[in-house]
């Protein structure tokens, strides 16, 4: 019963506080009236009666306040009223509120956006059923060179894994390539993923129609089968269920459709169609060309799986891991698929998160400075409230509530900022760049944002709150000037700190920008302007015959040369900036005879060097005379001559027994598979006439790579790509091109990661710079505003405007310069971790340091000069009168 009464009172106090208050007011008034009546009856004169009554009552407001204090739910009630008061205070200072909210929104927004990436990449589960039971196998090598990372497997490893590791369901895949798919009269260029049997069992994907591949279909020379993605089945075959069991033409070969994947099913391969990999120890199974993915069977443990893997893989005949490191200790262990999928991006993502954290600190330093000033300005208000009987706790609480309100509003706007910037960021990314289907703001991200906002408000509210505790009633009532030396020094150190962090971010992004510029301006060794490139898949039974292949190249390049505006046309297995295959070569004559080494390897048609305008340094390039039955010839690049002949003339020398080097050309940047130290670099390369590539090699090459058709035009040609497709069709009407692009597009695609790094870190560094500028500006502007009187006196005493401006601006400039020095010192230590992502420059890069110093000095000058200019408008006479 009493509980019910209490609840009723609580609710009444909370929701009908006005009526409760009116009631109390009447009660106190009637009490006073009764007292007066009593006094009158005792014979007092009316005035005396009222005075005595008021004396006894002891202040109507105090009585009421004491009742309110004792009321149920008083805490909540006064919290609400503090919130209302706080909101009013913030509304009354739109400049302050707007600055704080915007600062918060930008910094919290940046953090939210970056965290949603972290969330999507590192925290959220992969889009498979029971992703925790899926894994990848890492190879740990302990020896002269120690490493622990994912490694592809060869055919022998795969067979052992499949047959002798019962704790796992295992599968391998062979990458995604372009192939031609004929549907009725149409031929489509589609992405094909080659997967072993059980691949979809490992991913736990059950076809919506039909079945997964059988073991028979996965054996070499087994029946040809294909599984379609849902989208392809719907878009190309009109979602026809009768397609199951029918034969479709893939690579010009009939394949039986055995299954259709469910809608929205994703695989690491992101292919349109899947065919059996049919892996063996031969062919591509000789090398480590398979990607393995595993799932733990019910009832088994990872320890069992690891033990089984180590047992079977350690007793292999061909242990390539030991080839360069014979005494090394090699072991294998499984890691969660989540980890192996996100490993390559983890350092970048965590670095970004760190940068975002620095932004937050910078914002906090700024906001602490701003709230400190605001707090000091309100000293007299605080003193008045203290004098009227407010407790220290009540004053403190008011400030905390205002900070919290700001943090929540800033956080809410920040979410909007995050949504917008995330959308921009995702537009920047190439398709399938991230190993996750989408990046979204889910509950975890929102919880993070809330936590960050509150943390920020705690951080920036702490200083002013501490300052408020020291407000001394008497001195602050008497002392009207509120900026004291202590608070100025405090604000200056805040500025120094944030500038130092900004310098680090600026230096880091500067280094990345320099690195990107280095990569984009590598001497091309060819003329990239005016080239248009398109790929077509020759992974097609019709081109297993070298004669058919040669005929296609001849006819299609001839047809392309006929296109009006086209100066030259050629075909090559690769163009510059692309990933290039490689092989071993053996030198066959002179003192280098018997030397071996790896070299990149590209087949080309005779017009290739002319079309790309690659300078010929020595000898000749290919002609139509170099055919399948003539002397085997190659053209090498300058790096090849450097590496294998010490810079001597390679022309006339023999390699691989009977192959003659006939020419030397300039180096072009490529994306290396041989010894990748940078995303693009120049490397020893040999060019082979397309006519001299042997049949079996041709089949293997075309399984992995799609050759490029290249045309050169003097200027833009209307409808060029359509004309190129038509020219290709005159040679083969059933050969679709994958799409056409310029060399600039290609370079951009190869350097996508670097561009994104630059864009993201650059954006964060700019944000830091803006925040620091705002901080310096606020410091100086505040000094001007609060020293108006002092400045007036100085000017009245004969100081020039310039002198006063320098003196006032000095506080901001000094703090900023100190921050610059501190930041450079910190960068020297901290940025060494960036060494692995820098190309062509060192960590201590003069140009970058110079640019950082210049940028920061300019911003500092601007941020101090702008508010200092207001000094010019100060009229000494008037300011002196006002005080």
């Amino acid at each position, binding site marked *: 019963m009493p509980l019910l009464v209490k609840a009723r009172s609580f609710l009444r106090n909370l929701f009908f506080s006005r009526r409760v208050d009116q009631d109390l007011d009447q*009660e106190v008034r009637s009490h006073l009236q*009764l007292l007066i009546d009593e006094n009158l009856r005792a014979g007092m004169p009316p005035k005396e009666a009222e005075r005595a009554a008021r004396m006894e009552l002891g202040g109507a407001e105090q009585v009421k306040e004491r009742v309110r204090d004792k009321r149920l739910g008083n805490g909540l009630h006064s919290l609400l009223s503090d919130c209302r008061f706080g909101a009013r205070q913030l509304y009354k200072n739109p400049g302050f509120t707007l600055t704080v909210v915007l600062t918060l929104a930008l910094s919290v927004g940046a953090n939210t956006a970056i965290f949603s990436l972290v969330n999507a990449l590192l925290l959220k589960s992969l889009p498979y059923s029971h992703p925790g039971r899926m894994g990848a196998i890492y190879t740990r090598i302990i020896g002269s060179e120690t490493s622990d990372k994912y490694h592809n497997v060869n055919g022998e490893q795969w067979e052992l894994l499949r047959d002798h590791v019962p704790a796992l369901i295992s599968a391998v895949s062979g990458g995604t390539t372009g192939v031609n798919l004929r549907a009725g009269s149409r031929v489509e260029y589609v992405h094909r993923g080659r997967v072993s049997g059980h691949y979809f069992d490992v991913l736990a994907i059950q076809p919506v129609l039909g079945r997964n591949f059988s073991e028979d279909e996965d054996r070499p020379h087994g029946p040809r089968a294909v599984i379609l993605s849902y989208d392809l089945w719907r878009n190309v075959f009109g979602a026809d269920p009768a397609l199951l069991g029918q034969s479709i033409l893939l690579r010009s070969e009939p394949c039986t459709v055995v299954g259709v994947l469910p809608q929205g099913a994703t695989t690491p391969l992101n292919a349109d169609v899947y065919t059996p990999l049919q892996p063996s120890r031969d062919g591509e199974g000789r090398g480590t060309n398979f990607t393995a993915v595993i799932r733990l069977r019910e009832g088994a443990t990872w320890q069992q799986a690891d033990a089984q893997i180590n047992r079977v893989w350690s007793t292999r005949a061909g242990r390539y891991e030991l080839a360069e490191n014979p005494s090394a200790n090699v072991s294998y262990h499984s890691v969660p698929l989540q980890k192996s999928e996100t490993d390559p991006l983890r350092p970048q993502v965590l670095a970004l998160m760190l940068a975002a954290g620095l932004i937050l600190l910078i914002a906090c330093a700024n906001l602490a400075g701003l709230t400190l000033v605001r707090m000091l300005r309100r000293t007299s208000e605080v003193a008045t409230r203290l004098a009227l009987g407010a407790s220290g706790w009540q004053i403190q609480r008011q400030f905390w509530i205002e900070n919290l309100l700001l943090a929540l509003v800033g956080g809410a706007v920040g979410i909007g900022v995050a949504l917008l910037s995330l959308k921009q960021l995702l537009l920047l990314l190439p398709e399938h760049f991230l190993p996750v289907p989408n990046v979204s703001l889910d509950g975890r991200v929102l919880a993070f944002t809330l936590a960050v906002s509150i943390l920020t408000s705690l951080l920036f509210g702490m200083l002013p709150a501490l300052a408020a505790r020291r407000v001394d009633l008497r001195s602050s009532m008497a002392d009207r000037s509120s900026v004291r030396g202590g608070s100025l020094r405090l604000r200056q150190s805040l500025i120094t700190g944030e500038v130092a962090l900004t310098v680090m971010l600026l230096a880091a992004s500067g280094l990345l920008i320099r690195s990107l510029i280095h990569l984009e301006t590598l001497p091309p060794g060819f003329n990239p302007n005016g080239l248009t490139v398109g790929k077509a898949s020759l992974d097609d039974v019709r081109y297993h015959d070298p004669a058919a292949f040669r005929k296609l190249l001849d006819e299609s390049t001839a047809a392309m040369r006929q296109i009006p505006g086209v100066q030259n046309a050629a075909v090559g297995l690769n163009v510059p900036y692309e990933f290039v295959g490689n092989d071993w070569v053996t030198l066959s004559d002179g003192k280098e005879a018997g030397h071996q080494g790896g070299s990149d390897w590209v087949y080309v048609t005779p017009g290739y060097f002319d079309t790309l305008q690659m300078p010929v340094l020595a000898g000749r390039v290919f002609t139509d005379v170099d055919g399948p039955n003539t002397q085997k010839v190659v053209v090498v690049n300058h790096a090849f001559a450097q590496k294998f002949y010490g810079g001597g003339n390679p022309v006339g020398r023999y390699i691989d027994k009977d192959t003659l080097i006939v020419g030397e050309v300039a180096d072009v940047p490529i994306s290396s598979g041989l010894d990748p130290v940078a995303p693009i670099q120049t490397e020893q390369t040999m060019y082979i006439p397309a006519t001299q590539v042997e049949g079996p090699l041709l089949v293997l090459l075309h399984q992995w790579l799609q050759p490029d058709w290249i045309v050169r035009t003097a200027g833009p040609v209307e409808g060029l790509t359509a004309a190129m497709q038509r020219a290709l069709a005159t040679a083969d009407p059933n050969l679709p091109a994958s799409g056409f692009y310029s060399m600039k597009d290609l370079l951009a695609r190869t350097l996508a990661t670097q561009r994104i790094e630059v864009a993201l870190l650059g954006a964060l560094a700019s944000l830091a710079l803006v925040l620091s500028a705002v901080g310096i500006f606020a410091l100086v502007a505040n000094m001007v505003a609060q020293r108006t009187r002092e400045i007036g006196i100085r000017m009245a005493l004969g100081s020039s405007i310039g002198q006063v401006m320098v003196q006032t601006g000095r506080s901001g400039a000094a703090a900023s310069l100190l921050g610059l020095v501190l930041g450079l010192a910190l960068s020297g230590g901290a940025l060494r971790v960036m060494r692995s992502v820098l190309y062509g420059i060192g960590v201590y890069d003069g140009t970058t340091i110079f640019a950082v110093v210049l940028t920061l000095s300019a911003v500092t000058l601007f941020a101090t000069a702008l508010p200092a200019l207001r000094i010019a408008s100060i009229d000494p006479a008037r300011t002196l009168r006002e005080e």
Partner: protein
Amino acid sequence: MNSEPTTLLPGTLDLLILKSLATGELHGLGISRRIQQITGGTFVVKPGSLFPALHRMEEEGWTSSFWGDSENNRRAKYYRLTKAGRKQLEVESRRWGRISWAITQALQAS
């Protein structure tokens, strides 16, 4: 009899208010005067202490209040004991009896 008003011991105000209401409903001033009267002028309860206590006790459910007319036709808020209030009066009285007996014992000890 001591005519000097004495400060109230903690916890005794509730007891005095409950006791003053035991004989019937009273308004705030009435309660104040009644306490003064029944304690022989030892305790004078000021409005600053009386009203917070009255409101708290009402929220506890020991008293209920209503607006009525005073003896000389002034609107005034009256309080009366609820059932829970009567029980509380018994509890408090017993507690006070124990305390007062204990204190007296303590002071008489030699």
